[in-house]
């Protein structure tokens, strides 16, 4: 039976004793079967608490968690048919890799020969068949992640829960591990909920991103939607590196992404549909072939420090200390209400 909705939370709330605000505040969430859902936000935003409530490691103060249509509040983790990978991978140090992978199967009282079979299958899928007799302390970070995934896989859960599994890896390894995870998801197809504070990871991996702050969901959507049409200034500045530029003007905030601005002379005379403004360049950074121009923007609203990202294909010479004419396409401008900081229509 294919569940249309694998995991759902309804009004899920968690208030820790002694806390001044809920860690998770009336969150409604619904995952689609087989999707890769990313919970994204800064530390303290409640994403991990939310994940733990779905897992059953934390009891909600209010609201419901539903897995496969059944309400699971009050059920212990082992009864929920979920698998979880912690940031530290939580491999049992006193067991071999094989014993680690077989551990969940032991809990289900599966006989030894079947366990061996399943463990071998999972290990093959993740390419760690050769490591089965090693112990965790003998493995590299990437290998440990794969053992953790094999162990999660072996239960054939309905949901995978991943809590920042890439944070402990060094930068170079992280990119490789990310690809591994994506391939893994494609291969296995299980609904996955993935927690991270790294927006690059989120953009690269998620089918949909849930952006959270202070226990509340700010926006849900596919990466492109969240990036191009942020629901508020927090989402606008949290995603994208460098973040969206925000220029206050009267009672709105005008926003544009650094890569959407171009020097006026690139377009020559074809300036319809573009807004003109001036950039007083302060400093130039050369990053991965792009030029990042840091400077003061005037003509859009209050003079505000902004960053403009010029790709290598734009050859216009730029010098620090000079003011240049810049343009942004009007359809690339975003508007936010000064008070609520939420997105709004173009006021003009």
């Amino acid at each position: 039976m294919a569940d249309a909705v694998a995991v759902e939370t309804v009004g899920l709330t968690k208030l820790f004793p002694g806390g001044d605000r809920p860690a998770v505040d009336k969150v409604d969430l619904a995952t689609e079967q087989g999707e890769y859902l990313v919970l994204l936000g800064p530390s303290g935003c409640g994403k991990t608490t939310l994940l733990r409530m779905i897992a059953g490691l934390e009891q909600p103060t209010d609201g419901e968690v539903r897995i496969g249509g059944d309400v699971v509040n009050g059920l212990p983790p082992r009864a929920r048919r979920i698998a979880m990978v912690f940031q530290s991978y939580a491999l049992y140090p006193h067991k071999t890799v094989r014993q680690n992978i077989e551990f969940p199967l032991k809990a289900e009282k599966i006989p030894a020969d079947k366990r061996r079979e399943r463990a071998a299958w999972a290990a093959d899928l993740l390419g760690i068949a050769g490591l089965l007799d090693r112990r965790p302390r003998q493995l590299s970070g990437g290998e440990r992640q794969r053992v953790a995934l094999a162990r999660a896989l072996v239960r054939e859960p309905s949901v995978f829960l991943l809590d920042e599994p890439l944070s402990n890896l060094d930068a170079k390894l992280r990119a490789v591990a990310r690809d591994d995870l994506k391939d893994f998801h494609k291969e296995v197809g299980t609904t996955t909920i993935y927690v991270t504070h790294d927006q690059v990871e989120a953009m690269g991996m998620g089918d949909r991103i849930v952006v959270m702050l202070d226990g509340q969901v700010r926006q849900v959507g596919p990466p492109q939607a969240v990036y191009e049409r942020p629901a508020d200034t927090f989402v606008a500045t949290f995603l994208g590196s460098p973040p969206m530029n925000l220029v206050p003007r009267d009672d709105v905030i005008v926003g544009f992404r650094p890569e959407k601005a171009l020097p006026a002379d690139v377009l020559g005379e074809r300036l319809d549909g573009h807004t003109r403004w001036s950039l007083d360049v302060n400093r130039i950074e050369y990053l991965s072939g792009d030029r990042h121009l840091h400077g003061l923007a005037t003509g859009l609203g209050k003079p505000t420090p902004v960053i403009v990202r010029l790709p290598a294909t734009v050859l216009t010479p730029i010098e620090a200390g000079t003011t240049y004419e810049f343009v942004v396409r009007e359809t690339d401008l975003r508007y936010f209400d000064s008070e609520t900081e939420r997105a709004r229509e173009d006021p003009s």
Partner: protein
Amino acid sequence: MTATSAPARARVTDREGLLARLMLLPAIVYILALVAIPFVVAIAYSFSDVTAGDPSFDWVGLENYRANLDDPVFTRSLWNTFFFTAATMVLTVVFANIVALLLTTDFRGKWFVRFLILLPWTTPAALGAIAWLFMLDSLLSPIDWILWQIGLLEEPRHVVWLGNSGWAKASVIGVQVWRLVPLAAVIIMAGQTSIPDDIKDAAAIDGAGFWRRLWEVTLPLTLPVIAIAVLFGSILTFTDMSLVSVLTNGGPVNQTQVLASWAYVRGIDGGNLAQGAAVAVFLLPLLLAATIAILRAVRRWEVG
């Protein structure tokens, strides 16, 4: 591939609140039955006239306490308990720090030296006392013999270590120190090794020599651990009766009695359980005060 079984219901072993209580229960029951209740009973005894021969419980109020205060041996025991413990701890801390420093440096034969240094602690207190019984014997003491050879003592005079009131007290303190230094050193060593290396390196770069580093870095940072060592050492000394019993039997003429040993003499040897209890009760305020003082000090000194 087969799917996993249908979700199980939550069982007792999952209900964490209940589980916590159940896991705690055996220990709590045991302690209640074998410590809390006997504790209260013992205090009640101190107000009674219970003896080994006549176990009937009759209330006598503060009679036993009054008798104690009139008893010179009791007051001597009280004083000795304080004095012995204080002297022991001071000496122990000094020597234990030295030994700890020694054991944290490297040198050849360290394992053997460490083995020897630990011997006094690993030996049961009574058996350590036996070793010293010979060393301090009034006739056969090898220490006397050495003193004869050096000329500090005139042969065939003896110091009579355990028979002379002053020397007996010194001996008791000395043997306690001898026994406690290894334990204290081990605890302090653990504290010294937990000082982050960067701090020691920074001190060395800043030009601090050995002594300055010791006084201004190592000692201040290990103060909490030293306090813990003092706490345990004090408790052990306060409550110990085996050393005094075996070494001097409280002698000569009850001059080296401490509360613990005197309570035993009254309660078991003398059969007067009520009086024994009344003596032992005096240990409680001392212990509690010492513990609170040291724990508070530890909290204050706890650095980062």
